């Protein structure tokens, strides 16, 4: 008999078994019938059953922003199975655990099916079910009373992050009531910095964010032109697993090169050609290094930089703004229209400073020097390019490696890949993720990342990150800033790209047609809490979160009292969560809406409206490349409603109470008030006659396809328009503005937002990428020596899915990724519980030991624990204190100057051995109470 010569059986270490102890499992078997399928025999005694269904509905997932097209299988109105739609384009039929686990969250015992009024004290999690009418009446009564007593600014609203359905609704609710105070934990900490920079520098809001705009160019399925992609602070494979995650996998398999800049050895990093494990909070230093190397080695696109960017413009050393030709050359008469000013450059043809008019590059009269410095009228002037190069000068490869904890040769390798220094490639782009939006260098990092693609000429071309799509992008006139503002239609906000006269005319027209509204909106911009210091918040008409908290607790400059939150768990997502908890007692009344109760509802809410899960809610505008898909109503239970309905209904009721008018902007609310209207709106999007027509003929309507040759449009900026010139970009100069001078105007007057009436000035915001050492720095912090950063795991999206049993059994607890050498210093073994502390507080997490993080760096995903208030817990807690990284995050100054961003990543912590908190579940079988139970709920009709 031969000996079974096994070596270490380590490769079977992961085998998972429940052991002899039987667990009572109420699995999905309730949905499966016992009878075998009527089709052919299954096999000799094999008892596996096919999932029985009687209907398939086409829909989209909303587990994250991927919105992957999905097929829902139903049996007797119960959704029993989900599969990807193979015609989904980028996703190619993939779906991820976030999608699949909707099968549990849709039918979760944690769902709210009826309006709830708080029954005990806040924190007790006691509720009574009330009728819709009662709930609307109660909400409206409180709102009307509060505003009558304290004015509209006492009302404030908040929403969730990307993926939340309800951003516009709460914003326009506030505007309808006359309050400017809206925030979301993301916004200034997520995407808004990048949008602000893109709008100012490119004139459009097509950012480099793969997660938010689905980077339709990178993931083009046919004739993909991508060559090299720099994934900067993003994890496509984790955040949008089945969309851009799938897309990245296909690109890599096709030979596209990738560079990943991430402190964590993320899945995308494991496949990258170069991984730069950057010290959290030092991205701007690395960007400046890239600028320096690219400038020094002349790797930038020279023609593009000269003629399509403002880097050759002379900059006034006092005003820091580009010098207009008329300022230095008073006799110069420009030939371009008023909306396209002429600037000044140093012309290499004449070796003199010369007016520099806008034109097609081939028609240019000058050959501008990008990096010039010289004396004019006794003062030293530099071009924008020279200013940038001077700023970047200290950032040699070696110095950068030192500050950023990287290796110089790896940095160089990354740059050379990006710039095709050693190959014939011509295109590329930066996929810029949320990481840099989460700390106080958010605007500078956005400026830097966009600036890099600009100087490389990776704009509007095949394979680039920053592109515009669709027939509507083909310009007829000089391009103006395309950043749809909720407020622009009220005669506020200038539109860069229009001449001063044209902007003025708009204002005057509004002043005649709607003077009160114009004044009110302009005033709201100025009065938004904290916006005087951080005017970039006007990008999304939002306010500064720490300023809101301060106003609540101090009453200065006024006291917000009534809080309407429309999505998520604010105590899990706001920085320095404990500070918010302490302020809850100052809130008079809190109204919420969500599909289930979270820590925030337990601790703060007085009234909660039940909203639909994505399997129930009709929603549209889910774009995938050149196709638009429908998120369909596959089923419906309880008295849940689509997201826009509670706020719409409450506003109607308030209006009645106020005798027919609301205190804010009339007819401002965006969103439907009834399910019928929601469905009609969806039908209209697809060109169907009605919702029924849409459903009956869904395959002809969905997806709505723009033919590829009409969708994939390039080089729009070069197209000649009605003034005989190239359309250009939606900026003041009609060119790309890597020297983002609008930031200066923004700081000084709030232009283009607080216009016509300016907002008080604050210190200038930087128009270029600059570096500042993080306020809490591991270089000097002795008490908290490790630097912490965050990221995602594929099971959850923001605060969602923590109540899915199947998600939790795979990833049960918060984890902190620690380098084994660091762990050993503290006697911490793999999967030990550790205590993590910052200056704000302490939490617990399990240690995941990995060489994938720097020994001086740790990495944690966000986590809150819904099991903490399960019925079985003897001492219930709300689940936001135990393992939530936002107990540690930093919400005080310094903030990003332009946007007010606080510090979610790149702050300091310490670790030590710890203990499992009392209420936390870790073992698979413990999550049994989260298993779905509502499949037997009757399918209900529309409620409102």
């Amino acid at each position, binding site marked *: 008999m031969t000996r079974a010569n096994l070596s270490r059986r380590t490769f079977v270490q992961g085998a998972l078994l429940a052991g002899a102890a039987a667990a009572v499992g109420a699995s999905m078997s309730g949905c499966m019938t016992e009878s075998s399928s009527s089709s052919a025999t299954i096999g000799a*005694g094999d008892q596996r059953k096919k999932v029985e269904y009687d209907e398939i509905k086409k829909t989209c997932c909303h587990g994250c922003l991927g919105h992957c097209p999905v097929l829902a299988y139903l049996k007797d109105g119960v959704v029993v199975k989900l599969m990807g739609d193979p015609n989904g384009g980028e996703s190619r039929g993939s779906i991820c655990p976030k999608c699949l686990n909707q099968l549990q969250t849709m039918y979760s015992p944690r769902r709210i099916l009826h309006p709830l009024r708080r029954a005990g004290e806040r924190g007790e999690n006691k509720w009574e079910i009330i009728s819709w009418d009662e709930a609307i009446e109660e909400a409206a009564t409180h709102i009307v009373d509060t505003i009558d007593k304290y004015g509209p600014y006492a009302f404030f609203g908040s929403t969730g992050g990307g993926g939340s359905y309800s951003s516009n609704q709460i914003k326009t609710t506030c505007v309808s009531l006359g309050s400017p105070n809206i925030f979301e934990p993301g916004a200034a900490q997520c995407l808004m910095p990048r949008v602000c920079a893109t709008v100012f520098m490119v004139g459009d809001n097509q950012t480099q964010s793969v997660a938010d705009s689905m980077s339709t160019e990178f993931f083009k399925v046919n004739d993909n032109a991508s060559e090299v992609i720099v994934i900067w602070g993003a994890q496509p*494979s984790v955040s949008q697993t089945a969309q851009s995650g799938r897309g990245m996998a296909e690109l890599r398999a096709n030979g596209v090169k990738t560079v990943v800049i991430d402190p964590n050895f993320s899945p995308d990093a494991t496949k990258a050609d170069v991984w730069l494990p950057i010290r959290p909070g030092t991205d701007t230093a690395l960007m400046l290094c890239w600028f320096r190397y690219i400038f020094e080695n002349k790797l930038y696109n020279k023609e593009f930089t000269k003629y399509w960017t403002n880097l050759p413009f002379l900059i006034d050393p006092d005003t820091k703004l580009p010098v207009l030709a008329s300022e230095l050359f008073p006799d110069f008469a420009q030939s371009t229209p008023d909306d396209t000013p002429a600037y000044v450059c140093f012309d290499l043809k004449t070796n003199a400073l010369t007016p520099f008019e806008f034109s097609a590059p081939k028609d240019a009269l000058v050959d501008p020097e990008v990096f010039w410095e010289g004396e004019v009228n006794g003062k030293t002037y530099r071009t924008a390019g020279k200013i940038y190069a001077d700023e970047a000068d200290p950032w040699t490869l070696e110095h950068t490696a030192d500050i950023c904890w990287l290796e110089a040769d790896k940095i160089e390798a990354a740059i050379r890949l990006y710039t095709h220094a050693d190959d014939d490639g011509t295109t590329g782009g930066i996929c810029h993720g949320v990481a840099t939006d989460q700390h106080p260098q958010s605007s500078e990092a956005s400026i830097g990342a966009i600036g890099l693609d600009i100087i490389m000429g990776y704009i509007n071309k095949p394979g680039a990150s920053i592109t515009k799509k669709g027939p509507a992008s083909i310009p007829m006139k000089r391009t103006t800033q395309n950043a749809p503002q909720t407020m622009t239609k009220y005669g506020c906000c200038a539109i860069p790209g229009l001449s001063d006269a044209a902007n003025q005319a708009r204002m005057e027209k509004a002043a005649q047609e709607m003077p009160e509204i114009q004044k009110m909106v302009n005033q709201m911009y100025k009065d938004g809490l904290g916006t005087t210091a951080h005017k970039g918040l006007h990008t999304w008409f939002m306010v500064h979160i720490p300023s809101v908290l301060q106003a609540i607790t101090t009453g200065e400059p006024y006291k917000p009292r009534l809080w309407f939150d429309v999505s998520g768990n604010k105590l899990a997502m706001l920085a320095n969560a404990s500070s918010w908890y302490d302020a809850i007692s100052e809130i008079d009344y809190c109204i919420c809406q969500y599909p289930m109760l979270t820590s925030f509802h337990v601790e703060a809410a007085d009234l909660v409206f039940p909203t639909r899960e994505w399997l129930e809610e009709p929603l549209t505008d889910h774009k995938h490349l050149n196709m638009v898909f429908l998120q369909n109503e596959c089923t419906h239970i309880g008295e849940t409603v689509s997201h826009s309905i509670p706020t719409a209904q409450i506003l109607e009721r308030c209006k009645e109470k106020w005798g027919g008018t609301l205190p804010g902007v009339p007819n401002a609310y965006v969103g439907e008030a009834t399910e019928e209207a929601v469905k009609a709106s969806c039908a209209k999007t697809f060109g169907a006659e009605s919702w029924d027509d849409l459903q009956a003929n869904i395959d002809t309507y969905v997806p709505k396809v723009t033919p590829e040759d009409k969708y994939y449009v390039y080089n729009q900026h070069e197209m000649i328009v009605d003034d005989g010139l190239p359309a250009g970009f939606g900026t003041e100069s009609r060119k790309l503005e890597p020297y983002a001078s609008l930031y200066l105007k923004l700081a000084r007057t709030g232009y283009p937002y607080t216009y016509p009436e300016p907002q008080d000035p604050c210190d200038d915001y930087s128009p270029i990428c600059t570096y500042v050492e993080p306020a809490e720095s591991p270089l000097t912090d002795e008490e908290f020596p490790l630097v912490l950063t965050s990221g995602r795991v594929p099971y959850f999206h923001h605060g969602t899915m923590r109540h899915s049993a199947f998600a939790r059994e795979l990833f049960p607890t918060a984890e902190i990724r620690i380098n084994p050498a660091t762990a050993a210093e503290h006697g911490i073994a793999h999967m030990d519980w550790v205590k993590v502390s910052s200056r704000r507080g302490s939490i617990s997490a399990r240690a995941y030991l990995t060489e994938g993080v720097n020994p001086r760096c740790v990495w944690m995903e966000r986590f809150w624990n819904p099991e903490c208030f399960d019925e079985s817990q003897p001492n219930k807690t709300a689940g936001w204190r135990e393992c939530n990284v936002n107990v540690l995050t930093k919400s005080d100054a310094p903030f990003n100057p332009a946007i007010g961003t606080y510090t979610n990543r790149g702050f300091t912590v310490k670790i030590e051995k710890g203990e499992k908190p009392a209420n936390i579940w870790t073992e698979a079988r413990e999550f049994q109470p989260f298993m779905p139970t509502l499949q037997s709920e009757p399918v209900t009709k529309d409620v409102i």
Partner: protein
Amino acid sequence: MRYAIVVDLDRCTGCDTCITACKYENSLPLGVRNTRVNVVGPTGTFPDIEQYWLPIACQQCENPGCIEACPTGASYRDEETGVVLINEEACIGCRACMQGCPYGVRTLNPDSGTVTKCSLCFQYHDEPNWKPVCVADCCTGARFFGDLDDPESDAAKAIAAAGDNVHYLPDPSNLKPSTAYILSPKIAAWQNDPVEVARDL
């Protein structure tokens, strides 16, 4: 016929969709999986490291150790397709098959008292486009399915295209696992005796 799955580890990012989809399709309760995905690595010392994920389910061995160990004959091979299956009606939950499998791909389902494992979604084998849900749902397009004896199948074509980069799990007992793994050196070096890092305690 020899139906099996080929996994391209160059693509796999460890998202656990395969585990999750399988649970739903096969009504598995908490604590029970037909497949596992653990990480191999990071190997090396920061920052010079490499890593790959290793999804492991029934390897569809040509000489399985499970069938001969099963006293009731519940573990058997389907003659036509070659798929190793479990007849749950005949399974008494003795777990001898689990002792016979070095890859740990079988799990006791405490609800039913029987052992479960990946069956390649055999309940659909009579359908023309038979494809296990893990293959259909995979978020990186890393899984290929088909009859390895049919050169036109996705699985056979994936193996052919991978050349030298095809690997199998260690097989000291000559069980001949059919599940092929593709891993190219630019991602990581295949480990013949991989150390799987799990978070299961």
